[in-house]
């Protein structure tokens, strides 16, 4: 207990904090400039000086730790004079171009001078001139306005961990400079922009387009890009988004954002947006009316249902749509169309892995708080780069590294290059062998845990088979670290799930999770992969993850939904596509999904979908898939509708409507209109009504309301009941022997700046990463005789592409990476896939690649 006196007010502190913090707790405001709550104290601006009894000089409140018996004064004649003087100092070289500066109105220097500063300056000499050293396309720098508070540098180094900027020069020549010469060679998180108190760092996305006080409204909502679900604030003027800003300390991201979240909002105002329904007439998509389009869909689906049964109809839901959309979608599929053929693109990784883990370890095993990663002693990262796939989750890993945690990377992870303790580079496609060996060794050392007999049995079988391959450099160190770690987290990307024997890696990870009592995190590329599973958009489960095969559950839902749910499990994603090809599926309803672009084997998939009798696509853009559809319906996008999303840690969050648009309809509304026309009543006036129904029927959402959700701490199972089933037997592993002959393998790049459909229509993100490049490791480049920027042609069995080479030092194995996030044919068009028999996820094949320099 510490008791100190500030301005005659006695303050008692639980733990030692700075005087500034103590004053804040007592409601006493001390002016600050270089201090920012998100970064470490600096003590440079000297504005927060206070008088402390028995201390000779004035002290800076931001760096002084409160001590028992301290007597502090925050205001006095002297202090005011110092503050006035400091502000005058700051202004001698400040350009005072407030009428022109975008920061005016929310500028901390402006506010401080107004409150504490001099009205007239005495500096008569010429001000420093600092020409802009280079022009960046995203960040506008004006170093004449810079007050060298170094908040941006501290943010970049100590929080973001990008270390892209520094203060160069000294004294009056001090200025923030990026280390690269051409432009900011950084992660474009823009968190420096958040903390800049003046107009020294601004975003070109909105420069000179509005004044901070000229916004019509600010809406607190959730980002739409990845499975983290960061909170952010959207500022709207004239029904268009002016900018996206974070709120410090707010949401699970605590006010930090990544490039996509902060700068990727422009797609919503893209001229490519679908505005009216389209109907195929004489082989061409033509503009139509809602009533015509909806009637055609209802008639056609009814006809097919009658002729071929509900099982000839299938639906693909979307992890970009809300829980409400997905819930209504699966209900429509099951009740109106009479089919359980519902799946989504999440089958390619997240849904498959999630189901495997929940089957083996129990429901909710992946529901772990992202922030908790910080406190792990050891973090095992595999199957992708978390700092690119889920950037804000990646920051927690970096924070853990700074706190001394051991970060172990299996494979490549560019964003963790400077943070990892150990990296293992197993042979490509043989990661499961390494994991098997690791599991066997650890189980030998730890002994049988004996809680889940199926896993114990699975491990025993593995060790009897003496499975695995520990012949990878660093194996013993990895084992020792894991064995001695008091708390371990495993962060799994989907890369190693997408193998024909991906379930082997999943079992090994499940086994490690079980033996090490680790926390498991699944990286999720889309914002609602978890929510869509919980909403029931899977062929074998009803909302709440209740298996269709258990009759009691099915009957309960039938009672609530007034009708019969088809008996058998439906088809998974790739079975649906095969079904379309084989004419087993006649009609396919796609909600916000683009399989032709987003799945491996573009031409195969396109052909399959073309074989359908009837294809409906609802989306916000005329996607590659929509182009071959029979009916296309314009949906609403992010900020245009309200709905809930469940992130990868299973936090249910509310995405709010921020702008009013005249075109398009919410996905759930379109579907309920079709349903009504098909004779199955759905009467929802707003999305809230759907959540009310979900709260009634889904055991996971019990009593959940929008009000509760808006507080931001609805973590699963929030009042709900998990299902603690236990399987008796782990599915038998099937071993696939890949015999590859080529020297290089093609892999899917997951870039930080892109996510696909949305990002390729966001001009700012395209400026950061304008066109796809073939990413090659340094060793491979040497072997191939390639230099940065060389044009190459690369071939797989399926096709070829041309691209420029980009050498990436962080790629340690013989993989080359190409992205699938740009207009035109991406990496998926060059690949094919097999299906993992256990998880039904695609095992990406056809990755052998030949590279030819042009």
């Amino acid at each position, binding site marked *: 207990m510490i008791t100190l006196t500030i301005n005659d007010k006695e303050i008692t502190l639980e733990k030692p904090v700075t005087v500034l913090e103590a004053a804040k707790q007592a409601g006493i405001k001390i002016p600050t400039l270089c201090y920012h709550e998100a970064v470490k104290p600096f003590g440079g601006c000297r504005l927060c000086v206070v008088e402390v009894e028995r201390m000779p000089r*004035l002290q800076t409140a931001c760096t002084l*730790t409160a001590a028992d018996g301290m007597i502090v004064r925050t205001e006095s004649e002297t202090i005011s004079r110092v503050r006035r003087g*400091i502000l005058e100092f700051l202004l*001698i070289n400040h350009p005072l171009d407030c009428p022109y500066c975008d920061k005016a109105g929310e500028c901390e220097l402006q506010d401080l001078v107004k409150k504490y500063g001099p009205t007239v300056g005495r500096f008569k*000499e010429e001000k420093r001139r600092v020409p802009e050293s280079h022009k960046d396309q995203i960040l506008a720098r004006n170093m004449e306005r810079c007050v*060298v508070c170094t908040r941006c540098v501290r943010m970049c180094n100590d929080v973001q961990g990008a270390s892209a900027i520094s203060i160069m*020069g*000294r*004294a*009056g020549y001090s200025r923030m400079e990026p280390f690269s010469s051409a432009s900011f060679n950084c992660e474009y998180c823009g968190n420096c922009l958040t903390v800049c108190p003046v107009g020294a760092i601004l975003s070109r996305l909105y420069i000179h387009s509005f004044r901070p006080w000229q916004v019509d409204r600010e809406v607190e909502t959730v980002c739409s890009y990845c499975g983290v679900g960061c909170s952010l604030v959207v500022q709207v003027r004239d029904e268009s988004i002016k900018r996206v800003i974070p709120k410090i300390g707010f949401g699970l991201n605590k006010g930090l954002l990544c490039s996509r979240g902060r700068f990727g909002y422009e797609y919503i105002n893209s001229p490519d947006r679908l505005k009216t329904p389209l109907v195929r007439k004489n082989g061409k998509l033509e503009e139509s009316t809602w009533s015509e389009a909806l009637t055609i869909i209802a008639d056609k689906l009814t006809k097919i249902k009658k002729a071929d049964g509900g099982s000839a109809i299938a639906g693909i839901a979307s992890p970009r749509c809300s829980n409400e959309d997905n819930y209504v979608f699966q209900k429509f599929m099951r009740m109106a169309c009479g089919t359980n053929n519902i799946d989504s693109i999440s089958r390619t990784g997240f849904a498959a892995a999630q189901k495997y883990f929940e089957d083996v370890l129990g429901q909710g095993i992946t529901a772990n708080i992202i922030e908790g990663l910080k406190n792990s002693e050891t973090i095992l990262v595999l199957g992708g780069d978390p700092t690119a796939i889920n950037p804000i989750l990646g920051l927690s890993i970096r924070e853990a590294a700074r706190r001394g945690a051991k970060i172990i990377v299996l494979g490549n992870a560019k964003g963790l290059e400077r943070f990892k303790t150990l990296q293992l580079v197993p042979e490509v496609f043989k990661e499961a062998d390494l994991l098997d060996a690791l599991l066997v060794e650890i189980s030998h050392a730890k002994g049988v845990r004996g809680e889940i007999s199926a896993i114990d049995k699975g491990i025993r079988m593995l060790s009897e088979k003496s499975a695995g391959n520990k012949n990878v450099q660093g194996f013993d160190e990895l084992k020792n670290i894991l064995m001695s770690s008091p708390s371990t987290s495993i962060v799994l990307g989907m890369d190693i799930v997408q193998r024909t024997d991906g379930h082997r890696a999943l079992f090994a990870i499940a086994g490690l999770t079980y033996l090490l009592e680790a926390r498991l995190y699944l990286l999720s590329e889309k914002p609602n992969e978890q929510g869509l599973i919980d909403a029931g958009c899977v062929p074998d489960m009803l909302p709440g993850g209740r298996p269709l095969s258990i009759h009691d559950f099915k009957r309960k839902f039938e009672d609530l939904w007034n009708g019969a749910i088809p008996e058998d499990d439906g088809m998974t994603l790739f079975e649906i596509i095969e079904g379309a090809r084989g004419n087993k599926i006649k009609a396919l309803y796609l909600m916000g999904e683009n399989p032709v672009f987003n799945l491996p084997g573009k031409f195969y998939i396109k052909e399959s979908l073309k074989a359908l009798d009837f294809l409906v696509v609802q989306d916000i853009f005329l996607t590659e898939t929509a182009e071959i559809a029979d009916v296309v319906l314009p949906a609403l996008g992010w900020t245009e509708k309200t709905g809930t999303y469940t992130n990868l840690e299973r936090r249910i969050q509310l995405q709010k409507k921020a702008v009013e648009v005249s075109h398009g309809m919410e996905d759930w509304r379109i579907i309920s209109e079709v349903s009504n026309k098909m004779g199955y009543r759905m009467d929802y006036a707003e999305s809230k009504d759907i959540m009310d129904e979900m709260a009634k029927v889904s055991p996971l959402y019990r009593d959940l309301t929008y009000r509760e959700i808006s507080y931001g701490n609805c973590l699963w199972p929030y009042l709900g009941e998990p299902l603690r089933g236990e399987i008796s037997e782990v599915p038998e592993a099937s071993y696939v022997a890949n015999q590859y002959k080529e020297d290089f393998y093609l892999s899917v790049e997951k870039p930080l700046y892109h996510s696909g459909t949305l990002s390729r229509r966001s001009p700012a993100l395209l400026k950061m990463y304008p066109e796809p490049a073939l990413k090659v490791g340094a060793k491979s480049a040497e072997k191939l005789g390639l230099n940065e920027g060389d044009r190459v042609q690369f071939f797989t069995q399926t096709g070829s592409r041309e691209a420029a080479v980009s050498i990436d030092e962080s790629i340690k194995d013989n993989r080359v990476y190409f992205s699938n996030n740009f207009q035109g044919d991406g990496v998926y068009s060059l690949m094919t896939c097999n299906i993992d028999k256990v998880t039904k996820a695609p095992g990406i094949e056809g990755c052998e690649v030949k590279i030819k320099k042009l």
Partner: protein
Amino acid sequence: MEKFLLKNIENPNSADVNEYVKAGGYKNLSKALDMQPKDILEEVKKAGLRGRGGAGFPTGMKWSFAVADPKFPKYLLCNADEGEPGTFKDRPILEKNPHLLIEGMAISGYTLGSEYGYIYLRGEYPYAKDVLNKAIQQAYEKNYLGDNILGKGKRFHLAVYQGAGAYICGEETALIESIEGRKGQPRNKPPFPVNAGAWSMPTIVNNVETLSNLPYVLEIGGEAYSKIGSKDCPGPKLFSVSGCVEKPGVYELPMGTSLKDIIYKHAGGTRNGKKLKAVIPGGISTPVLPAENIDCAMDFVAMQKAGSMLGSGAVIVMDESVCMVKVTYRALKFFEHESCGKCVPCREGTEWLRKVLHRIENGQGREGDIELLTDVTWIMSGKTFCPLGDGAAGVVTGMLKYFRNEFEEHIKNGSCKFVS
């Protein structure tokens, strides 16, 4: 007085290990290794040795803080970033008598339980770097450094780290930042370096001259050492005398020698017998003393009483031909250039002061400029992050205290009457 720090310095091969040993070198290291570290510390305390870098902090006390910290490894850093105008006292040791420093550091390392030492050398001393590196190599060869010093089972490793030419790196926390590979800027204190310095480990930063006194303390014993020179801060002291004197140079004299004696008895008096105007007694950041105030003892305590500071003992002598406004301007130009830019008062204040002084010196001073200077220095002094800003402000304040009339004349006449 017999010279110790500059002993043997006339010998052209003084930097060679054999010559050093011939003159009795390294025997104190051997003696030290046979003693208990706590006994050596006791001797240092008894000797009353105070830091020679400028602040005059009792070395024994600083060391006992570091010894009390249970963390290992501990680092011993030698501050050889001698960069203040007027100061060149360490240079003869670094260039002519490097083994004295190495011996001092080895003894200190043993006393402190530190096995790793660095000499943080000023960027502008390339010659000293070569000398030191060679000397260190010789010391390793002769087993004065290494894993088993003189076969007595003690370890001490030493390396030279050269700065990039920043005055601020003489401030110990900035020095540590620099040695860790970052930009040299002072750190927040606490934690103090003795508890969390280089790489967050207990770190002792001592001046070249301080560490070079260690062999002497051991040679004659703390008791005898404490009797040399001033009572409060005993020992030999190096004074670097420059400016308008007949014989500028480095003088080893007992602490407390009078400033007047240093100038007139040792440095040969003012050049060409011109009238003395003022003396900056301890390097440019110490306040100026007018000619009539120079009859005072040069030690930490007496100089404070005289209204200035001993600083590094760098005596800058100015005669009647020197323009004090120009001296002030030149000093501020230095401080502006060397301000690290971390804190506002120093970064902006030095620039403002320099600009105003430039104006006055060039005959464009305005009425109110002296008040402006006074006010700007008030905002700076005591409010900057580290003492660099205080020093800059102190120069102006000191000059205005004794030579205000010169500033006034400049402003009134619109010109400088001194021809330079």
